[in-house]
């Protein structure tokens, strides 16, 4: 029996392939460089192997810096109706993550939220179709 889509399913079993680490994230990004960023979206790359969302962060002195924030593959999002218009340019995001080890303005987005606190892409407890 197929489970209706729209309900995420919990299973206590860890998939063996979690050990197949795609990525040396800890080499790319620095656990000792946490960042909390707030900025307006300038570009959205919903691509593989990882998505990248570009935001413009305005510092206290008024200078604007563009940050690239790394996320996940968009393939499951596509199946849930996410399109290229789902994150409009100009919308404000809050990003908690870790900065690139080489000190450039890149970060992996541990959590990405809209300014009102909603998580990026999904809100609430169920995935909507």
């Amino acid at each position, binding site marked *: 029996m197929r489970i209706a889509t729209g309900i995420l*399913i919990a299973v206590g079993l860890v998939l063996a392939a979690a050990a197949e680490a795609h990525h040396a994230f800890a080499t*790319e990004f620095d656990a000792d460089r946490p960042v909390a960023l707030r900025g307006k979206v300038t570009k959205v790359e919903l691509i593989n*192997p990882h998505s990248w969302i570009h935001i413009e962060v305005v510092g206290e002195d008024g200078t604007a810096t563009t940050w690239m924030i790394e996320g*996940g593959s968009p393939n499951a999002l596509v*199946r849930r109706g996410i399109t290229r218009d789902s994150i409009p340019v100009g919308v404000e995001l809050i990003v908690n993550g870790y900065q690139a080890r*080489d000190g450039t303005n890149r970060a992996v987005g541990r959590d990405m939220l809209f300014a009102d606190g909603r998580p990026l892409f999904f809100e609430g*407890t169920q995935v909507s179709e």
Partner: protein
Amino acid sequence: MKHSMTRLNRSILAVAVAGALASVAALPAAAQSSDSGPRTAWGDPDIAGVYAQYTTAPLERPEQFGEREFLTDEEFAEVENRRLTARELNFESDTEPGTAADVHYNLDQFALGANEGVSSPNRRTSIVTLPANGRIPAALPQVAERRTANQARTRGREYDGPEFRSLTERCIVWSSTLPPILPGGYNSNMQIFQSPGYVMIQGEMGDPRVIPTDGRALPENLLPQWNGTSVGRWEGDTLVVETAGFRRETAWRNSSEKLHVTEKFTRVDEDTLDYAFTVVDPETWAEPWGGVYPITEMENVLFEYACTEGNYGMANILSGERAREREAAAGQ
């Protein structure tokens, strides 16, 4: 060099042919079911679709089950209850901030943290069913020798450039898309496409395998390929696929280029196929091993996985290491 038939002649011919077709015997109807299951328009068993590979059974059998292949009714009820229970999307990080484990994007935000909500009941205690204890046989000593030799060869050079990074970091091949296909971490889905005389199988993050189903044997001298070479045949309602001729570097589960995989796809019900496999590699395991698990149709599409095109990660890994080296040099 346009086709020179006039439109009028084509219409006349089309009408005549249509009339003739109506009286040509043995024209197969659109996909029809026989007692053994749905068929394609040309009469092969219909196994086409997009399938989720997620299953509740673990790859290897937990030791407490011994040689027991199936769950009891009580055990199965518990597994089913967990499988069917909705859970909250976990946007709160459950890893310790400031640790390497926390340096990762949030899988749930991209709907990658679970199995995308599609799966089938599985009464088995494990995916592996051969050998009888449901556990993968121990690797032969030469496997450790190969790995030691490889590590010695590249020691100290792992970050010099891209060439000694993993096949996934290099966007060459994801082991979870190679035959035998086992459930993977995310995007663990495959497409099966059928046309007369061929089946195409492609894992969402993998390469297409175009498999002739005319029962031809594997060629004698196979050119090594990352995905090997596959040939197929129908045995009743089961598609049997043989794959061999892997490159040495593919090393699926540390196997050698002698790896030979047999896969069997059989429709179980309208939503489910049984995916069974056997693995033989005399330079990796002393005995064949294999297993079976259900794959479940998802009414959706696989999306393009252009990996190397978007691989900022490789550049970031290398530049990150260059930065670390500069820091280390400056600190001296």
